[in-house]
C-alpha cells in the first residue's frame, strides 16, 4: 500500500495504457508474469521515462522485472522507472513487453499437510493492471496447470487449465482488487537458502570450483511422521526426489559429496549439443515440506575457459552462480576467489548486486606468503540474473618458478643435512694408531 501512494505521487506524465494483456504462470513455485502493454502519450510533451510497477498484492515479492520494446531491453532503475531509447511523441503509442517474476507469491495453503496429502497453493493478483496511469482495456489469465480449483474469486472463470479474469475497461491508475485462486500445485518448491562458491585459480592450468549448497523445501510443511513404506508407493506428490544441475561442458573430476561422504546416486553426462554437462542429482533422502539438505559439488575446469591474460594483467570471467536446478533461487550468496600468491591490484566487475568483503589469506601447498582470497557476499540471486563476475589482477609471470624452486630447495636442504651428518665422525673409541707395535 505504501508503494502505491508513492506510485500515485509520481504521475507526472499524461500516459494512458491503451491495451494491456497479462498472462500469469503459477504452475511452479514462482509466479511469472508476461504482460503486453500498449502505452499512448496523451500529453503535449514527449516522454522518455515510463513508471512501471509490480503487481499491487505481490510488490514485496518481486525478484525480477524486465521490459522490452520490440527486441530491445529497456534500462530500468531501482524505482522501476523504464527509460525509452527514443522518446514517445505526443499521440504516439509504444508497446512494452514486461516480464516479472515473484518469489513467495505462490503460497502453500494449508501450510501444513500430511505425507499423503496433495499440496494446495493460493495465488492472489490484482484484477486491474497495477499502474499509475489510466488504463483503457485490461485482460488477464492465470495458468494454473490443473483443470480444477479449490476456490476461485467471482471475478475469474476457469477455462481449461487457466483462470481467465474479467476484462476491465477504463479504470484509473492505482485501482486494485484482489483476485484469488486456490488450486493444487505439486511442483518442487526448492530454494537454496545458502550457497558458498569458491573458485581457486592455479597458473599451472586449472580453475577448481567448489559449490556448497544448503537447500530447503519451502512448500507446505510435513505434519506428522514420514513413512518410508508409504513413500515407496507414492507416485506423485509435492516431495522432491531429484533435480538437475548444469555444469560447464569442459568440467572434469566432478564430485558430489556431503558430510557423510560421497553420494553415489547421481548421473553425469555431457550434452555436446547444448554445450553443457548435465548432472542429475538424487539426494540421500526425498525432501518434504520444511526439510533441508546440504551437499557439496566440485569440479575442475581448464584455465583457458575462464582465465585470460594480457602481458601481466589477468582476467578471470566466471558465472557467479552455478545453475543449481531449473529456475533456482539463492537467498544468501557467498563467493570466494582464491588467487595465486603474488597477486596485486585486484578489481572486479559484476552484472548484479554484490558486496566485496575484506580480503583473506589462505596457506596451502607450496605457499610462503599466503594466497589472496577475495570475498564477496550477495543476497537473493536467481536464475534470471544470469549473474556473471569478472575479476582482474596483476601477476608477474616469473613467479611461476617460485613453486618448483621451493620444492627443489626443500629437497636440497634435506640432502645437504644428510651429507653433513654422513661426514661427521661417530666413533667412540680412539682411532687405531698407525704405530701399532709390531710383535
Amino acid at each position, binding site marked *: 500500500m505504501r508503494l502505491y501512494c508513492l506510485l500515485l505521487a509520481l504521475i507526472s506524465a499524461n500516459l494512458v495504457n491503451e491495451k494491456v494483456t497479462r498472462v500469469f504462470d503459477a504452475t511452479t513455485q514462482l509466479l511469472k508474469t508476461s504482460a503486453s502493454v500498449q502505452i499512448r502519450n496523451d500529453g503535449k510533451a514527449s516522454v522518455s521515462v515510463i513508471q512501471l510497477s509490480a503487481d499491487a498484492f505481490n510488490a514485496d515479492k518481486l525478484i525480477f522485472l524486465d521490459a522490452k520494446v520490440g527486441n530491445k531491453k529497456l534500462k530500468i532503475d531501482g524505482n522501476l522507472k523504464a527509460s525509452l531509447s527514443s522518446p514517445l511523441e505526443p499521440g504516439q503509442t509504444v508497446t512494452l513487453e514486461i516480464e516479472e517474476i515473484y518469489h513467495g507469491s505462490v503460497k502453500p495453503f494449508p501450510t501444513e499437510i500430511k505425507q499423503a496429502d496433495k499440496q494446495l497453493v493460493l495465488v492472489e493478483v490484482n484484477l486491474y493492471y497495477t499502474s499509475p496511469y489510466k488504463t483503457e482495456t485490461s485482460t488477464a489469465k492465470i495458468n494454473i496447470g490443473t483443470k480444477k480449483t479449490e476456490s476461485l474469486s467471482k471475478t475469474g472463470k476457469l477455462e481449461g487449465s487457466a483462470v481467465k479474469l474479467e476484462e476491465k475497461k477504463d479504470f484509473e491508475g492505482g485501482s486494485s482488487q484482489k483476485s484469488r485462486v486456490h488450486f493444487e500445485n505439486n511442483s518442487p518448491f526448492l530454494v537454496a537458502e545458502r550457497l558458498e562458491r569458491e573458485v*581457486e585459480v*592455479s*597458473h*599451472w*592450468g*586449472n580453475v*577448481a570450483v567448489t559449490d556448497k549448497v544448503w537447500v530447503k523445501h519451502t512448500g507446505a510443511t510435513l505434519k506428522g511422521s514420514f513413512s518410508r513404506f508409504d513413500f515407496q508407493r507414492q507416485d506423485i506428490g509435492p516431495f522432491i526426489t531429484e533435480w538437475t544441475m548444469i555444469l560447464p561442458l569442459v568440467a572434469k*573430476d566432478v564430485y558430489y559429496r556431503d558430510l557423510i561422504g560421497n553420494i553415489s546416486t547421481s548421473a553425469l553426462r555431457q550434452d555436446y549439443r547444448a554445450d553443457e554437462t548435465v548432472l542429475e542429482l538424487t539426494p540421500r533422502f526425498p525432501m518434504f515440506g520444511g526439510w533441508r539438505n546440504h551437499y557439496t559439488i566440485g569440479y*575442475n575446469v*581448464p*584455465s*583457458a*575457459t575462464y*582465465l*585470460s*591474460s*594480457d602481458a601481466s*594483467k*589477468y*582476467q578471470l570471467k566466471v558465472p557467479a552462480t552455478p545453475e543449481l536446478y531449473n529456475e533456482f533461487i539463492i537467498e544468501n550468496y557467498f563467493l570466494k576467489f582464491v588467487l595465486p600468491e603474488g597477486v596485486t591490484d585486484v578489481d572486479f566487475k559484476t552484472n548484479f548486486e554484490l558486496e566485496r568483503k575484506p580480503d583473506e589469506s589462505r596457506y*596451502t*601447498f*607450496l605457499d610462503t606468503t599466503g594466497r589472496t582470497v577475495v570475498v564477496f557476499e550477495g543476497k537473493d540471486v536467481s536464475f534470471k540474473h544470469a549473474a556473471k563476475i569478472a575479476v582482474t589482477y596483476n601477476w608477474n609471470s616469473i613467479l*611461476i618458478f617460485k*613453486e*618448483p*624452486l621451493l*620444492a*627443489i*630447495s*626443500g*629437497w*636440497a636442504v*634435506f*640432502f*645437504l643435512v*644428510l*651429507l653433513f651428518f*654422513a*661426514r661427521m665422525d661417530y666413533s667412540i673409541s680412539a682411532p687405531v694408531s698407525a704405530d701399532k707395535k709390531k710383535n
Partner: protein
Amino acid sequence: MTFSPYNSPVDPAMYSTIAFFLMIAGLGSSAYFFVEQVTKSKNVRSLSRDFSLAMISAVFMGLGMMFTMLTVGIYV
C-alpha cells in the same frame, strides 16, 4: 587491452609423463647418493662430487614431487 585465453606453461596432458620420468630420475639419483654415502669409506669420497650429486637429486626430486602433485589434482 586484448585478453587471450591463459594456458599453462606446460601442457597439462603431459603432467603425468613428465612426473613419471622426473621421479624415476630423482629416486634413482637419490638412491645412488644414499648408497654412496653409506658404503664408501671417508677418504675416497670427495665433497664436490657428493655436493653435485645431492643437488642433482634435489632438482629431480623437487620437480618430480611438484609435477606429481599437479598430476593427482593438487594444482599448486
